[in-house]
């Protein structure tokens, strides 16, 4: 029952948003696929303790793979998601083999470097990727052969929310499993995990590959929803903003990733429309405020408030 509650809340919020903002479904869909990206980051940063500023490498690879697959092979959305997941997982596996030997700042720099290398590769391979013009001409087929993507974005939104539910459910099961517990153990003490006989390197690589698949799904959804893949899918800014969203919501608990993404993107959207030049101030103060007042993120806020009330009594 306790585990089903967040899903019920998610469903209510998703349905309410659908009816409350019927003409902003494209934006809501963007929030949803970004949530999936931040979930993948939480698996690494929050659960396993792998520091990264290069999640865009996995996301962007999923986006390009799904876009190219839709144009040249088959425009079925679910098949595209599978291809995106495979691309993200493959990039994670290959890069993870050497990335995960590093720690701390070195690891952070290497993760950024991988995304930058892939961005430049996509730029150079412009005869395949469209280079700086982006990969256009993506026309998705109907979801499950039944529902066409419509102009308003209703199908896209419902499809993205459904994928988010599946991804969140899978990650909820995985993080609650013995595998998930071992990842939390690695975050707390890799040395102790080795001392109990866990192959820490292989386990971290498995987490990285899984996160790669999830980020790849997010990228594929982005490509399918926007019908365009540009070089910005590999942007450092995307990786950095994903970290901010996660920190804002709270790390290591999955649901914090969803809350942080929704709040960050909504504040970003509103602040940017009110003042297109100074919206970064608002975001900056928001993050500062949350990190100061609720170090465990927005998801930890009720607990912080409870502690304050207890102290006041």
């Amino acid at each position, binding site marked *: 029952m306790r585990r089903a509650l967040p899903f019920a809340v998610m469903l209510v919020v998703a349905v309410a948003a659908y009816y409350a903002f019927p003409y902003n479904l494209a934006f809501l869909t963007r929030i949803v696929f970004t949530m999936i990206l931040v979930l993948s980051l939480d698996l690494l940063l929050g659960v396993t303790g792998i520091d990264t500023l290069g999640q865009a490498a996995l996301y962007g690879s999923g986006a390009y793979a799904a876009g190219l697959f839709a144009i040249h092979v088959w425009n079925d959305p679910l098949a595209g998601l599978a291809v995106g997941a495979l691309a993200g997982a493959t990039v994670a596996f290959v890069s993870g083999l050497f990335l995960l030997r590093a720690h701390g700042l070195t690891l952070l720099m290497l993760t950024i470097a991988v995304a930058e290398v892939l961005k430049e590769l996509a730029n150079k391979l412009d005869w395949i990727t469209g280079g700086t013009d982006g990969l256009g001409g993506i026309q998705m087929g109907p979801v499950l052969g039944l529902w066409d993507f419509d102009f308003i974005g209703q199908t896209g939104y419902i499809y993205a929310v459904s994928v988010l539910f599946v991804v969140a459910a899978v990650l909820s*099961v995985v993080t*609650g499993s*013995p*595998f998930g517990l071992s990842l939390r*153990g690695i975050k707390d*003490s890799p040395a102790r995990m*080795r001392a109990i006989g866990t*192959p820490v390197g292989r386990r971290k690589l498995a987490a990285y590959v899984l996160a790669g698949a999830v980020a790849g799904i997010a990228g594929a959804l982005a490509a399918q929803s926007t019908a365009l893949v540009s070089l910005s899918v590999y942007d450092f800014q995307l990786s950095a903003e994903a970290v901010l969203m996660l920190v804002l919501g709270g790390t290591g608990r999955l649901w914090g990733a969803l809350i942080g993404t929704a709040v960050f993107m909504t504040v970003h959207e509103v602040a940017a429309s009110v003042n297109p030049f100074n919206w970064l101030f608002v975001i900056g103060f928001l993050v500062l405020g949350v990190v100061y007042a609720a170090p465990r993120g927005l998801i930890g806020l009720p607990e912080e408030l409870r502690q304050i009330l207890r102290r006041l009594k």
Partner: protein
Amino acid sequence: MSAGLEVRGLNKAFGGLTVARDINLDLNPGDRKALIGPNGAGKSTFTNLITGILEPSSGSIRLDGRDIGRLSEAQRVKAGIAKTFQITNLFKSLTVRDNLRLPLLERRGLTGRPIRRADRDGGVEDEVESLLAQFRLSDLGDRTVQRLAYGQQRLVEMAMTLALKPRILILDEPAAGVPSSESPLIAEAIAGLPQDLAVLIIEHDMGLVFQVAQRIIVLVAGAILTEGRPEEIAADPRVRDLYLGAHHG
């Protein structure tokens, strides 16, 4: 083929600095041996060589007659060698139960399983409760480890290592940092270890060493100075010099 751990001619050098010199050691089922020596004698280096954290420059390490010198740290744990850490090294953000679940799940080869909740394996849960009871931690099972007193953390450390069902247990300064009011807990926990377990205890607290060890090995500058029964070691003038200074009365 001998049962237990057999170390022969173990050497380790970092460049020109030799930190382990021709060390021989036998540890058989039921043994309670202590390794003592002044700071910098090479005790931790020796345990790191046994557990596979460090690779020896030369010499052999055999377990039940099988050469384990080339096995990784994780493989040696699977083979039956486990150690506690000198400085408590636990999963501090996890509960005491989760700290015990992890080694139990690992021992059964289940930590790679991505489905079913980690707390749903009946056999594992029974063992968790039994270890909690053995180390008098039952009331603290759902508390995160970072909220435990240090002595209790040392007990969790031992319980976790025991959860691996090792045949060779290395206790690296189990009483280090533990307030004297809590040190009887440690002695009691060591006394309660399975009888057939081979235990090597590295400790500075001589009271604890003389209380639990059947034999004591004295290590100085990476080499064994002497080995004997506690009363022999206590009477050895070289050991007395070592601990009390050359001109003691």
